[in-house]
């Protein structure tokens, strides 16, 4: 009897410590400052420095899952994305980005959070707890789900479906496949585009802003077409001749350029 009590207490203590450590782990944040006014601190859960890296996404795995009816490329005029069909009346749009560092993924999300009209909230700021990703944000009654798992960012947006929770369902599914997927230990194995240089070609004043034309020299290790995105603009335009235009408003003394290839591998560089 005495031993049974000891064992019971032992397990109770283990459970208590486990719960406490979990709470402390969840509360282990770092903060990134919003990039535009208001310059508030935005929470991110800390991620282990020993995190491994994905070198591909999970499109094949998703296509084979019984929940998914179809996955099709459904680019808008300005953005590259997929439509994930669940059935005739339920679908979501999905974008994903594969970076060579967790920091790049977090800054990319930070830019999105700084400019979105719908103010997605970090999991820690609301009651949602779907256990998705290392960090996850929800917007518009969870019709928008953005999460980061290691070096991959995924954005799921409900496509005017009949049912609720489609974005959460698909996000959980994507994350479950990511968790099963093989990773590598070195970020240098992630085949992101290589940015060789950024130079300012010209500048002029437009209203309250300076407009700069920048020449970006970049190569893609996979030999794919490149697309560019600049902070403040959600468009992902064909890279073309490498000359991009950046408007630098009053709130901005530097800008960040993102280069994407067709498989959504992403590099970034800060300029000015």
């Amino acid at each position, binding site marked *: 009897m005495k031993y049974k009590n000891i064992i019971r207490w032992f397990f109770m203590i283990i459970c208590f410590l486990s719960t406490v450590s979990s709470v402390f782990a969840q509360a282990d944040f770092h903060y990134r400052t919003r990039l535009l006014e*208001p310059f508030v601190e935005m929470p991110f859960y800390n991620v282990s420095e020993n995190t491994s890296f994905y070198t591909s996404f999970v499109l094949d795995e998703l296509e084979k899952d019984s929940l998914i009816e179809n996955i099709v490329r459904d680019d808008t*005029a300005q953005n590259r994305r997929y439509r994930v069909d669940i059935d005739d009346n339920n679908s979501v749009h999905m974008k994903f980005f594969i970076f060579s560092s967790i920091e790049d993924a977090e800054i990319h999300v930070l830019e*999105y959070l700084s400019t979105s*009209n*719908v103010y997605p909230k970090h999991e820690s700021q609301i009651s949602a707890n779907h256990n998705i990703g290392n960090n996850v944000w929800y917007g518009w009654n969870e019709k928008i789900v953005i999460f980061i798992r290691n070096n991959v960012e995924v954005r799921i947006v409900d496509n005017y479906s009949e049912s609720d929770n489609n974005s959460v369902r698909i996000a959980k599914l994507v994350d479950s496949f990511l968790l099963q997927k093989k990773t590598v230990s070195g970020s240098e194995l992630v085949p992101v585009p290589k940015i060789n240089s950024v130079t300012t070609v010209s500048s002029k004043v*437009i209203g309250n802003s300076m407009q700069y034309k920048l020449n970006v020299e970049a190569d893609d290790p996979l030999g794919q077409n490149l697309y560019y995105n600049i902070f403040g*603009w*959600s*468009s992902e335009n064909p890279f073309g001749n490498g000359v991009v*235009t950046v408007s630098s408003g009053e709130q901005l003394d530097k800008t960040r350029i993102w280069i994407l290839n067709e498989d959504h591998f992403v590099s970034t560089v800060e300029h000015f």
Partner: protein
Amino acid sequence: MAVSLMMAESVLAWSLPLDVDVVKIHFNHNTGSTSSDGITIQEDETTIVAPEWYPLSSKNEESAYLKTVTSPTVKAEFYANDIGQQGYSSVRIYAHASSGWALSESNVTFPGGGSGQVSFGTSASFPQASTVGKWTITWTWKVVKIDGGSVTPFSVGTSTHTFYNVLDTPEAPMTVPWVEVLDYACDWAQGETTEVNALTEITEGINAMGDTDGDINYDVNGQAQYTSMINYEDFDLTDFFSDINTSSNVEIACNDSACLFNIFTTALGCSTKTYRRWNSSVTSITKMIDIIGVEDDFNPQDDYSFGLHQFGWFSNKVFDPLLQLYNGSDFFVPCNETLSTFESALLKTNNYIYGEEHLTEIVDN
């Protein structure tokens, strides 16, 4: 455009064809004034300069006028190859139109073969309409006198022109309006004479605007596609026009539709801006609305999350092309609404605290 005509002998005794060509037509011939000629406009980001009609250079460009200028002057140039050799020195010409704007008679002489720029007034019987609009006319240039002697009017050529009328002097960001913008704005506001009516037509026009499959959709992410989210003012108009002409999947957010309102209306000479409402951290939730585009064009629903909202702004009134409000029986595009009336009809939960005016800037990414 060579035209050879044999004159009726019963009217004037001459024996060879009269070769008179209309070679150039100038609409915006005085760029320092808009009181009696066209206003300066641009196409493909290049200012259109007179002569707008110059077939030898394959040039036939649009012109635009203030709606108050109903009797503008046009300048035309002619060339007569051999009129002097035939012993004649002048003809009297006018521009006939089967309907709409026409030009009255002017004397044309041909020193050295060319006439130089000859001014033609507007026919008192056929002035321009004193409304906003877009028109295409074909003028038949007719000779009615040779050296002062009347002849049976005969044609020396035709010319076809597209022109626009705007309400007032265009304002920033469209101080030099784009033809691509006037094409939409003047068509939507055709026949209007007041600012509010024109703004209403343009707001409804943007709301119904289409890409290659007929509609523009709302980006549920709330991410502007053509507007900088750094300042809510920089707008990539070149990209937008390129996309609606080539893509079936154009999406926009409120910032984009607000900037479009600002652009299309200032091209007509209206002093509009955009207005942005926001709360730094809390979203506002909509009532039942029919948001622009969205799959089947009509898919009203509520509970959209509008962390911030940007819309058209004129004389402290709201014009919002992004959506249609519901009044209990009908959906309607909100136009000329006070801010409080608009937000009361739009929002179930109104958490907006701040408001700021913006003036759009055209940029090219």
